[in-house]
């Protein structure tokens, strides 16, 4: 294993120079597309897409870069949506503070859930996160401030920093885009930091990371809280975009959806989940008008992805001849 890594190390450096150049070009094209997009698409659709893309990238931080499959990320997304909606609507917080409250709340929830879940590994980890998130669902169902089945409705978007009116959908779109980009930069910095490297070593070989003296549990918890906080950022943003927070956001189906987005886009690739989220959201929009239930389509895509398409869209692209020519390698 270690010999393989060593021989592979040198060409990797040469290639990554080409890769980072291509990457820069792609990022510039992507940014331009996102800035111009409201001219061509319905802003609400684009904002929904960006929220879910950020959510999926936050989730991927845990699955792709730490190797932990959480089945409870709806708790952080939906929990933050509730917190933001509540403080903005009932306490009159400005939007930026509202989202911050959502992020802090989600991070705290992540701390608690992570504390229990990291006591077990692999499949058990997935089951524990699912069970705890179901517990949070029942809490939201019964708690007063979530208003039960109705959810928190007509949340005001307010004025950003006191003077930018977010009720204009153009303003709101660029605000969402800004938050999305900040989130992406944080994720990018995080996975390329020494902390992120250690997380990857835990993913590759946990016993070895332990024997090297790393306190694996603490790193896992750190990654869990980080991922939860970023999922909360997406959730808080979502409740301002749609102006409501409901039980759908905390239900287990939501946790399943974010897994699908990540799987479809490419586990362990930085931008894969964005594409996965884009596809899933588009599909949902498309099917929303027909009678055919989304669940069946989602389920079938899940099965196909796991059986024959495990690298996901971006993973396949990186591994393809074109991808390799451009200097990418399959990164997983």
């Amino acid at each position, binding site marked *: 294993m270690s010999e393989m890594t060593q021989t592979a190390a040198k060409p990797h450096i040469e290639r990554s120079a080409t890769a980072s150049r291509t990457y820069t070009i792609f990022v510039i094209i992507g940014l331009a597309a996102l800035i111009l997009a409201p001219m061509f698409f319905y802003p609400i659709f684009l904002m929904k897409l960006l929220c879910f893309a950020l959510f999926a990238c936050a989730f991927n931080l845990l699955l792709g870069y730490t190797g932990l499959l959480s089945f409870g990320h709806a708790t952080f997304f939906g929990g933050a949506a509730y917190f933001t909606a509540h403080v903005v609507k009932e306490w009159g917080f400005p939007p930026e503070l509202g989202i911050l409250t959502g992020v802090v709340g989600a991070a705290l929830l992540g701390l608690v859930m992570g504390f229990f879940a990291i*006591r077990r590994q692999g*499949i058990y980890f997935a089951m524990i996160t699912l069970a705890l998130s179901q517990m949070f669902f029942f809490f939201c169902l019964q708690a007063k401030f979530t208003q039960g089945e109705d959810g928190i409705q007509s949340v005001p978007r307010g004025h950003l920093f006191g003077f930018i009116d977010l009720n204009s959908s153009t303003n709101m779109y660029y605000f969402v885009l800004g938050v999305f980009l900040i989130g992406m930069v944080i994720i990018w910095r995080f996975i390329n930091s020494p902390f992120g490297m250690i997380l990857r070593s835990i993913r590759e070989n946990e016993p070895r990371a332990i024997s090297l003296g790393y306190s694996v549990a603490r790193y896992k918890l750190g990654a869990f809280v980080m991922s939860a906080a970023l999922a909360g950022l997406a959730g808080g943003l979502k409740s301002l975009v749609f102006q409501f927070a409901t039980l759908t956001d905390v239900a287990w189906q939501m946790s399943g959806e974010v897994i699908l987005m990540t799987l479809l886009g490419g586990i362990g690739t930085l931008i894969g989940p964005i594409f996965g989220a884009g596809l899933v959201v588009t599909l949902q929009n498309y099917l929303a008008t027909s009678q055919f239930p989304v*669940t069946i389509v*989602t*389920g*079938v895509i899940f099965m196909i992805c796991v059986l024959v398409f495990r690298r996901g869209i971006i993973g396949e692209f990186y591994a393809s001849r074109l991808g390799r020519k451009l200097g990418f390698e399959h990164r997983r």
Partner: protein
Amino acid sequence: MTMIFGIPLQAFLGQLLIGLINGSFYALLSLGLAVIFGLLRVINFAHGAQYMLGAFAAMLMLEYFGINYWVALILGPIVVGLFGAIIERTMLSRLYDLDPLYGLLFTFGLALTIEGTFRYLYGAAGQPYSVPTQLAGGTNLGFMFLPIYRGWVVVVSLVACIGTWLLIEKTKLGAYLRAATENPVLVQAFGVNVPVLLTLTYGLGAALAAFAGVLAAPIYQVSPLMGSNIIIVVFAVVVVGGMGSIMGAIITGYMLGIAEGLTKVFYPEASNIVIFVIMAIVLLLRPAGLFGRDA
């Protein structure tokens, strides 16, 4: 009226019985999960869907072919077991060399597909399935009223649990199963057809879930959502018990069902979450689970 802990005895025993019934289903389902996990290293997320399929099988057989409860109790599990075996042979078996998480994700997709299909065809609302005439009515035990069907469910599920335990611990087939759990390559070298054993195991697990589903049909309403509601609780049960031991799964299932029933008496608001709370406490005190061998 007799009181116990400030609660009328009747209400107390009534909830205890409901707890015992729920516990029977938890035990049957977590048993199936443990059997499948033991050999295949796959957590069968579709277990809830297969439970739902069992209930639907009973209902549809009655509706279209006039097949009664007793035949459905045998035929339902066979049909669902065969369906499970086909899924295992054609798809699930391709995932054994991968990270076990892929098995979980695949069966999750399978569960979504099955649930979505039945929701599309039959709507989300529950449909009643009547108690067979032989087991209708109830009997007065002197201290409480016992609906006969509920008593039957407790007895039958106990028999099914013990039967499965005996099958795995005391028969030759069970010995093969346990050996293949420890070392599949070696068992294969001794001339046992391990892939067939895996298919059989998955089919058996699915059949057990469907058996529980047929049993549940007259008690709960037959609804496409009944599976996903129960499977998450069963996952918590499995985390508490640890999947290392078959008997552990059975005992934990009953214990947690009863704990849930008793919570309904004393603090109804928490009855939805009490199993999850117990799971959290067990994780703190004994991270490997009550009967678990693996950390």
